[in-house]
């Protein structure tokens, strides 16, 4: 019995050893280099880079928006936004105060958080011009020259007017309105 058990154990351990010996084989020394070369030609793994790219792009966009001075809103826009964002401010009407630069609307804000008032200097900004700068310069120059009389506008050919193409109308004859009496008696129901 004991001999049988020991023979079994020997056999199993022998099998294990055989398998271990059969698998005790290493890849060639060039294997790692080959894998590295193959990986270097692999495109950027989307699995780990894309989220970072998106996160970076989002962070940069937010940083740019926050840092841009042009994104500062006018006081009235700020006030509207503040009023929309604040429940307490929405309930109270705005109080208009006089400022040297322009009107500033200040809401009665009872919220505990301090609120930043918009600066008047930002409100003095000119409205955005939608005409190209060179075009605006050309118009200004034209007006100056016309004002100085250096351009004779009579030389400017007039375009065909809209009314020129119309045929002259003949005399309109409007017949007088004739009221004919009704046959039935006036005021009688029919």
């Amino acid at each position, binding site marked *: 019995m004991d001999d049988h058990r020991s*023979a*079994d154990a020997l*056999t*199993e351990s*022998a*099998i*294990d050893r*055989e*398998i*271990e*010996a*059969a*698998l*005790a*084989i*290493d*890849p*060639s020394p060039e*294997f*790692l280099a*080959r*894998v*590295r070369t*193959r*990986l270097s030609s*692999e495109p950027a*793994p*989307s*699995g*780990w*880079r894309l*989220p*970072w790219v998106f996160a*970076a792009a989002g*962070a*940069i966009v937010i*940083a*740019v928006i926050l*840092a841009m001075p042009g994104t500062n809103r006018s006081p009235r826009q700020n006030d509207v936004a503040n009023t929309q964002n604040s429940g307490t401010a929405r309930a109270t009407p705005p109080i208009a105060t006089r400022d040297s630069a322009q009107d500033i609307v200040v809401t009665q804000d009872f919220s505990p958080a301090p609120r930043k008032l918009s600066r008047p200097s930002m409100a003095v900004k000119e409205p955005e011009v939608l005409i190209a700068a060179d075009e605006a310069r050309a118009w200004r120059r034209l007006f100056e020259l016309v004002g100085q009389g250096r351009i004779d506008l009579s030389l400017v050919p007039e375009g065909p007017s809209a009314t020129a193409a119309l045929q002259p109308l003949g005399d309109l004859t409007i017949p007088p309105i004739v009221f004919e009496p009704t046959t039935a008696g006036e005021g009688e129901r029919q």
Partner: protein
Amino acid sequence: MNECTDRLAGGLISVEDELEREFEARLVESSALAFRVAFSVLRHRQDAEDVAQEAFVKAYRGFRQLRDRDRFRAWLVRMTWRLAIDRQRANRRRMVRELGHAGPPATSTVDALVEQERTTQLWQAIDALPEKLRIVSVLAGIEGHDLRQVAALLGLPEGTVKSRLFLARRRLKELLQWTITDPPTR
């Protein structure tokens, strides 16, 4: 602003560098494992290296989910095994197999022949095992993995691995009875 952007970009680059370094470490420590798993199926050095390389490329693509060392090795073993099985099926008609391996050097031609014959018999017996038993016995024979490690690599309970290993050994013992009980003298 620029400083903030630079910091952000620097942080991203350092994260990517760290991931690259981690993957390089996994590659170095797991290359033999992947190769041996592939070799246990294919018994062809070049094919095994190709399959192991393919597994590493796949691991590289999904490394973000595989940063944990144990998870990486388990995933790598299973992926390599699957790829090797696929390759084996594709190469069914391949006749030339590398039967020899880097074992103890043979001292004579007779020893070499006997050794080759024993190895052939062993692999035939392993190939005759059902796949579930085969991978357990192969992993137990690689790098001295114990039950717990094999269970972790396969994502199985230790008890399951233990019973499969028992069944595999019993089947192998039956198949190899004549060679094991009558080992060649050297």
